[in-house]
């Protein structure tokens, strides 16, 4: 066996140019596949991260009925206990308790449906990054209470600018329409135009004053120290507060979570196709290598190499090609993906198109370790399968015929 492996290994290097070409194409194929996968994965993660940072946070708590139609009366159950639990839980980095009003925003120039988020604007900075996306004006300032920070698309729809007034009409606890008048102090652009067209922020103190009490809270949004702990955190909270609705970001925005799953599925399909194409290249090359060595293989059979040894020898030759190229291909991919993961790839040419999906102008490539490992295994599996074809072909050689053919 060791001798067979030794011969197979040396055979790989007999036709150096050919082996080099096959190995290079394997490396290139793996690299281009993994690198594109890392770009797609980065685009997706960027979209998710930007959604998490500007809107979703990691976890949100609501009254179970609140999200049905944002009825103001559905406030979080056992609020004080919930907040206490959050204060004590080590997985919680910070949280923001919000009043959420759904209503109609209007100006003299138009009207549109919006969600007004009333939060402690200082604390809110720990949860969402709207404050760092202000394109005009400021993210609240001074002590005046009727301030509003609105999305850029919303400003455009209503022809609003800073220092202008905006009215919000909503249904109050008694089922009556009520109207707030706010003054725009800042306009933000989160990168997601859908969000920016339907959201505005106000100071919670002001809303508290309007409602005459401090404990109206519809929504607690929280950020964990580690996004991987959030699922656990949710389960803990659910046990403690079964009468509230507690949702992960992927549940609040199922299309994002779904896109995430779809993508990883798609990436495997994508890689499999590339690898199958590469396998055909290997099979073809190795078949050639077998056919042009008919005579030599015939002699080997004549002097006592049985079929299983011939089979092994050819199979090993094929496997060696992938044993050389897979680690190299994966390593080169890893290095380039890490490099562009640090410095990023400039996407400014296509920025306009991506922006409305919440993607930034620089792409930082990234790929999960799982994916590297699975693709490596998949490649070995496929090359193992490919190695069977040339080896089987070698078995079909008849020694008497093979030794005659030149």
């Amino acid at each position: 066996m060791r001798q067979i492996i030794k011969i197979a290994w040396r055979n790989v290097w007999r036709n150096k140019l050919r082996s080099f070409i096959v190995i290079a194409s394997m490396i290139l194929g793996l690299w281009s596949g993994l690198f594109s996968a890392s770009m797609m994965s980065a685009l997706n993660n960027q979209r998710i991260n930007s959604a998490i940072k500007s809107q979703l946070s990691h976890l949100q708590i609501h009254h179970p009925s609140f999200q049905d139609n944002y009825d103001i009366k559905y406030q979080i159950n056992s609020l004080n206990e919930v907040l206490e639990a959050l204060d004590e839980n080590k997985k919680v980095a910070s949280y923001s308790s919000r009043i959420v009003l759904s209503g109609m925003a209007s100006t003299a120039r138009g009207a549109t449906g919006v969600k007004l988020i009333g939060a402690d604007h200082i604390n809110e900075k720990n949860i969402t990054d709207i404050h760092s996306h202000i394109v005009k004006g400021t993210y609240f300032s001074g002590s005046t209470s009727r301030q509003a920070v609105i999305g850029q698309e919303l400003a455009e729809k209503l022809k609003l600018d800073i220092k202008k007034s905006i009215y919000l009409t909503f249904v109050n606890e008694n089922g009556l329409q009520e109207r707030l008048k706010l003054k725009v102090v800042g306009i933000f652009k989160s990168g997601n135009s859908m969000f920016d067209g339907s959201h505005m922020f106000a100071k919670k103190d002001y809303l508290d004053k309007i409602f005459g009490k401090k404990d109206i809270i519809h929504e607690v949004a929280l950020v964990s120290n580690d996004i991987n702990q959030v699922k656990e955190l949710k389960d803990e909270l659910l046990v403690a507060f079964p009468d509230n609705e507690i949702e992960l970001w992927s549940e609040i925005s199922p299309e994002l979570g779904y896109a995430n799953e779809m993508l990883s599925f798609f990436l495997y399909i994508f890689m499999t196709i590339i690898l199958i194409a590469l396998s055909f290249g290997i099979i073809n090359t190795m078949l050639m290598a077998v056919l042009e060595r008919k005579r030599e293989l015939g002699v080997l059979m004549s002097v006592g190499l049985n079929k299983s040894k011939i089979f092994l020898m050819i199979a090993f030759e094929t496997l060696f090609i992938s044993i050389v190229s897979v680690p190299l291909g994966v390593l080169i991919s890893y290095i380039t993906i890490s490099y562009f993961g640090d410095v990023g790839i400039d996407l400014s040419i296509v920025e306009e198109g991506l922006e409305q999906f919440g993607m930034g102008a620089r792409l930082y490539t990234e790929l999960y370790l799982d994916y590297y490992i699975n693709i490596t295994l998949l490649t070995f599996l496929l090359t193992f399968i490919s190695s069977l074809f040339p080896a089987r072909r070698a078995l079909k050689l008849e020694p008497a015929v093979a030794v005659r053919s030149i």
Partner: protein
Amino acid sequence: MNVIETKNLKKIYSQGEIKVNALNDVSINFKQGEFTAIVGPSGSGKTTFLNTLGGLDKPTFGNVMIDNLDITKLKANKIIDFRLRNIGFVFQSYNLIPVLTAKENIEFIMLMQGYSKEKRNKRALELLDAVGLSKESKRRPGQLSGGQQQRVAVARALASKPKFILADEPTANLDSSSTKNLLDIMYDLNRKEKMTFIFSTHDQRVIDRAKRVITLEDGKILSDKIT
């Protein structure tokens, strides 16, 4: 004592409509220690005959008995194993594994037979010495001349301690001095170690060295002379 006995060997190749009688009723025996040339013009059936004797090819009719075992009845994998232990082959060319050195080529056969490392090493060196290639032991076939390659092939054929060696035109690609050299070595091995050689050739100088000359024509034995 007969090492090989053939009975009514026939080999018919059919190429579409045309049938070729490559061997036509060949019955002949070979004794231990022979040094026999199979001669005849191209296409007379020499290769077919040697391949059939060595079990590379199955006859259409007839039997090949080696030490009273009918090898035409052996299954494919059995015959390979039988060859490994009983028959040495030397072909016209491409005899050696190109990626192994001369010594490794010789040891390879013994490795297949399960010899220990020390035994392999000792015997390979002995055989290289016997064919006059001790200095070339570490060279690969590509770095050896045609004559040297054939001598390694003979050494390798001997390595498995076969009952006989079949050589199909072993000198066809060699110049006259290499031819003489190879024949000297084969002749010596025949004389000293009683190794049986059956080789085909159409080189008169090779024929002159043989102790028995069997002439084939159109797959039939035309003459069988002991000199």
